[in-house]
C-alpha cells in the first residue's frame, strides 16, 4: 500500500467477496497471455517523499536559473516578476484539482475565471471574441492558420521571417496536415519587407502571419501590412507580446483579424518552457470557427447570472471530424494566473510597466551599443527587446558573461544564418539601471577579451 491508495487486508477481503473473485489477479484474466508482461516493470523501487524531494532538489541545483544569474535572455519567454497572489491562487484546491467544467452548476468558479480571462484578452488585443486559452504561443499561431483555412478555403500561407522561429517551424509541421503551403517573406532591415509581401500575395493566400514586436524586437508597421493583406482577401494573423500592449496600439484597432501570442509573461513562470498558455482572439465573424473552449454568460433556472462552456459544437467531442480543432484542454490554470496578473497590474499598471520597459530598453541599447566591438543590428523602434552585433564570436562572449554571472541574451545565429554575429537582449521590470550598467561592464570585458584573442591569432 502506497501513501496514495488505501486497501487494507480487511478491505481487500470484503471487496473480492463482493466482486465474486478470489484474487486481484483474476481481474486481469482478460489480458491474453501473449501480451502479458511476465516480469516486473524495469524501474527502480519507489522512494519516500523526503528522498524524492532530495533528488528533485539535486537536479534543480544543476540548473542555472534566473535566480542564479542576471538574465537578459528573452526570445519568446521573459523573466518578469510574478506576484505572490498568483502562486497562492493557482495552488488553491478549488482551482488546481477540478476537471474541465462539464457540470457548470458546480464549476462557476472556473467558468467565471474563463469569462474574465476572455474579457481581459479582448480588451488587450482590441478584438471582441477570445477563447479560454490554447496550449502556448506557437501552437496558437498554428491554430489560427487552421481557422483561416476554414474561413476562406485558400491553400497558401505567407509568414514573415520576423515571426518567432518556433512559430514558423510549428506552422511548417502543421501545414503538412492542413494541406497548405507556407511561404516566407524576407525582412528588409529588421522589419517585414512590404514589397516582398505585396509580391507574394495573391488570391490563393489565405492568411498573412506577422509578429509584433518581431523576433528582433522591432515594431512592425502592422496597419500597413494589414491593408496590403486585405486588398487580396487574406486574413491577418498577428502574434503579439501581451505586455507591450499598454504602450503599443491594440492589434484589433490596426486591422488584425486574429491575434494570438504567448501568455507566459502574464503571471506564469518560465518553467524551462512550459506549461504556459496561448491566447487567441478574433473578429466577431470568426466566433463559430474559434478553436478551444469558450465560456459564455447565461442565466439559471431561477434567473441567476451564471456561466457555461458554450459553442461546444465547434469542439472535437461533438462535431468529431468537422471540428474546428482537436484541442480539448485549454490551459485553465495558467489562464487563471494570467487574469489574476492582469488584474494585479491593472489599467494603469500595464501602461506604467510598458513605459518603464520602453525607457530602460532604450537606455540599455544606447549603453551597450556604445561599447567597443558592439553595435546595433538595427535602429528600428523597440519596446523591450533589441538586437546587437558583436565583433567577436557570440557564443564565446555569452559564455564569458555567464561565467561572470550574467546571461547576455540569445545568440541570433542559432536561428538566423544571416545574423551569426547577432545577440538578442531582453529587458523586463526586474532589470534595473544598475543591472544594465553591470551587464555593460561584463559585456564590454567579454568582447574585449575575445577580440584580444582574435587579434593574437589564438584559435577557438
Amino acid at each position: 500500500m502506497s501513501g496514495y491508495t488505501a486497501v487494507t487486508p480487511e478491505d481487500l477481503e470484503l471487496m473480492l467477496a463482493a466482486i465474486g473473485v478470489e484474487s486481484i489477479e483474476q481481474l486481469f484474466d482478460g489480458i491474453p497471455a501473449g501480451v502479458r508482461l511476465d516480469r516486473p516493470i524495469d524501474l527502480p523501487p519507489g522512494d519516500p517523499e523526503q528522498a524524492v524531494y532530495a533528488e528533485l532538489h539535486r537536479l534543480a541545483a544543476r540548473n542555472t536559473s534566473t535566480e542564479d544569474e542576471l538574465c537578459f535572455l528573452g526570445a519568446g519567454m521573459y523573466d518578469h516578476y510574478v506576484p505572490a497572489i498568483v502562486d497562492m491562487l493557482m495552488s488553491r484546491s478549488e482551482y488546481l484539482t477540478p476537471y474541465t467544467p462539464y457540470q457548470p452548476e458546480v464549476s462557476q468558479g472556473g467558468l467565471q475565471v474563463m469569462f474574465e480571462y476572455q474579457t481581459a484578452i479582448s480588451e488587450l488585443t482590441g478584438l471582441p471574441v477570445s477563447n479560454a486559452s490554447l496550449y502556448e504561443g506557437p501552437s496558437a499561431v498554428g491554430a489560427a492558420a487552421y481557422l483561416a483555412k476554414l474561413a476562406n478555403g485558400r491553400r497558401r500561407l505567407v509568414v514573415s521571417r520576423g515571426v518567432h522561429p518556433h512559430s514558423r517551424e510549428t506552422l511548417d509541421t502543421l501545414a503538412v496536415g492542413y494541406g497548405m503551403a507556407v511561404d516566407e517573406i524576407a525582412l528588409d532591415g529588421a522589419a517585414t519587407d512590404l514589397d516582398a509581401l505585396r509580391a507574394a500575395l495573391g488570391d490563393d493566400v489565405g492568411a498573412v502571419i506577422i509578429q509584433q514586436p518581431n523576433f528582433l524586437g522591432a515594431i512592425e508597421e502592422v496597419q500597413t501590412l494589414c491593408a496590403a493583406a486585405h486588398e487580396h482577401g487574406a486574413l491577418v494573423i498577428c502574434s503579439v507580446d501581451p505586455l507591450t500592449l499598454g504602450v503599443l496600439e491594440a492589434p484589433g484597432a490596426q486591422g488584425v483579424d486574429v491575434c494570438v501570442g504567448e501568455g507566459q509573461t502574464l503571471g506564469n513562470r518560465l518553467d524551462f518552457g512550459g506549461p504556459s498558455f496561448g491566447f487567441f482572439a478574433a473578429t466577431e465573424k470568426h466566433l463559430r470557427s474559434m478553436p478551444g473552449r469558450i465560456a459564455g454568460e447565461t442565466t439559471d433556472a431561477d434567473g441567476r447570472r451564471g456561466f457555461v462552456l458554450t459553442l461546444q459544437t465547434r469542439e472535437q467531442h461533438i462535431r468529431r471530424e468537422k471540428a474546428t480543432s482537436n484541442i480539448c484542454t485549454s490551459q485553465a490554470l495558467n489562464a487563471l494566473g494570467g487574469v489574476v496578473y492582469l488584474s494585479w497590474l491593472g489599467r494603469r499598471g500595464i501602461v506604467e510597466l510598458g513605459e518603464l520597459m520602453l525607457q530602460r530598453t532604450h537606455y540599455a541599447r544606447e549603453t551597450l551599443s556604445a561599447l567597443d566591438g558592439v553595435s546595433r543590428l538595427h535602429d528600428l523602434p523597440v519596446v523591450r527587446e533589441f538586437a546587437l552585433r558583436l565583433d567577436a564570436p557570440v557564443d564565446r562572449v555569452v559564455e564569458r558573461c555567464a561565467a561572470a554571472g550574467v546571461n547576455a541574451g540569445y545568440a541570433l545565429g542559432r536561428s538566423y544564418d544571416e545574423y551569426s554575429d547577432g545577440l538578442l537582449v531582453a529587458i523586463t521590470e526586474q532589470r534595473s539601471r544598475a543591472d544594465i550598467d553591470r551587464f555593460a561592464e561584463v559585456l564590454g570585458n567579454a568582447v574585449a577579451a575575445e577580440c584580444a584573442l582574435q587579434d593574437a591569432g589564438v584559435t577557438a
Partner: protein
Amino acid sequence: MSTIPEGGATAQQRERATTIFEKGAPGRRAFTAPPLDVPAVDGLIPARMRRGEPPLLPEASEPEIVRHYVNLSKRNFDLDSGFYPLGSCTMKHNPRLHERVAALPGHARLHPLQVPRRAQGALELMFRLQEALAEIAGLPHVSLQPSAGSHGELAGVLLTRAYHADRGEQRTKVLTPDSAHGTNPATVTMAGYEVVKVSLDAAGGVDVEDLRAKADEHTACLMLTNPSTLGIFDPNIQEISAIVHRVGATLYYDGANLNAIMGYSRPGDMGFDIVHFNLHKTFTQPHGGGGPGAGPIAVSERIAPFLPRPQVSHRPPDNGGLPTFHLDYDRPKSIGRLRGFQGNYGVLVRTYAYIRSLGAEGLKEVSEVAVLNANYLLARLRDEVGEHLPLAFGERCMHEFVLSGAPLKKALGIRTLDLAKRLLDHGMHPPTVYFPLVVEEALLIEPTETETRETLDAFVAAIAAIVREAAEDPQIARNAPYTTPVRRLDEAGAAKRPRVRQAL
C-alpha cells in the same frame, strides 16, 4: 434526501455573480512599478504606433483581488474536496509533493533557452523520464514535446504520415472505432486524413471482421485504446495488430486508459507503434480546471526517425567536455516542431517525482487497485440498482465501466442527466455522461485507485437513494440540483446569443 430541500438558497447563492471588472474603482492599484531610474526620453515610439486609451483592465487593491478570487473558488467543486468519478479522465489524487518540487527555483525559474551546460539538471530529468516512459510503454523512443493528449495524437498521425511518405506511399484513411473519444476524428481531419469508422462487436471490442474488410492499402493507421472507453480489454488485440501491420499501416495507442494495465501489459508488446501518455490522467498532473497537461509519445524503432525536433539526448562521458545531456536538433527526417521550446517541463517534473515515488511496484499497484475499485463499485451498483442501471457490456471491467440509463428512463422517467444533477446535491461529482456514444444514456464511471472503500460505498448509497426517490417522485431529479451555487443553466441561450466577455 427524499424531500425537496426547502428554502435552500444560501447567502452565497443569492449573491449575484460579479466579475473582477465590476469591482475596484478608478485609482486603486495592487502593482507598484519600480521607479524610473534612467533618463526619460520622448518619441521612442512613433505616435501612430502608440496605444490611445489604456486597456480597460480592473483597478483594484490586492485585498479586493484576493477576496474576489478566493470567494469565486468556493463556487467550484474539486477533487481535493470530494469524489470525482469521471470516466476517461482518471481523477486520481494530486500529490502535493509535486507542487513543492515543481516550484523549486532551479526548475521553475529556468529559462527554456538556457544553454545545455547550465541546464543539466533539467535535461537529465527529461532524459530519465523518457527512459521510464519507454519502459512503461514497451517502446524505445520517446518525445516529451506534445502539450496534451490531443496534441500527442496529432503528433502520432503526423508521424504516420511522415512514415508513409518516406516509403513513397500516399495513404488516405485513418480507422477509428465507434467508441473512440471525440478527439480522434478531429485530429485525423487536421492531419489531412479521412476518418473511417470500425464497428464494435457484441462484446464491445473491435469487430475483427469489419476491420479486416476495411483495412487496405489506403489505410494509414488504426487508432485505438486498450482497454477501450467501455473499460474492456480487447481480447483480439494481437489479431487486430496483425491485420493492421499486414496492410502496412501503423497502430496508434491512445493512452487515456493506461491506468488499468501498468505492470500487466504494455502497448508496445500488444503491437502498437505509437503511444501517447496523458500525464494529467495516469501520472497525477493536476487537471487545473481544464489544463495544463502533457501528452508525450513513445514510438517503435521504425517510427523513431520522424519524432519531433528537438529530442533530449545523451552523450557518453568522454566526449571532449561537451555536456552529457543535450537537445538534439540533428534529425533530418523529423516532422519538425509541434510547439515552442521543449515541452511542458513543469508537468514533466511532477511526473518524474511521481514515478520516483511509486517505483515499479507502486505503478503496478496503481493498476491493481484501480481495477479492484472499479470492479467493486460495479458489483455493488449491480446489487443495488442493476435493474435500472445495467452494465452496458460484459460482466466485469478494468478501471472503468459504462452503465446504461435507458431502463431507468423507461421505468422511472428520469434520464442520466437528471441522475447526474441530483448527485450534485449529494456532494459528489457525477461520472461522465452521454459518452461513449454507442451506449444509450451512458454513465461512464472511473473511481481510480486513490479512493477508499468507504467513499465507493457512499457513492453507491447516493445512487440508490436517487433511484428510490425517482420511483416516488421523478420531478425531484428533473429539477435538480438545488443546493449548488447556481441551478440548471440555459445552455441553449448561451449558444444562440453568445456573450463571451463582459461589456465594459
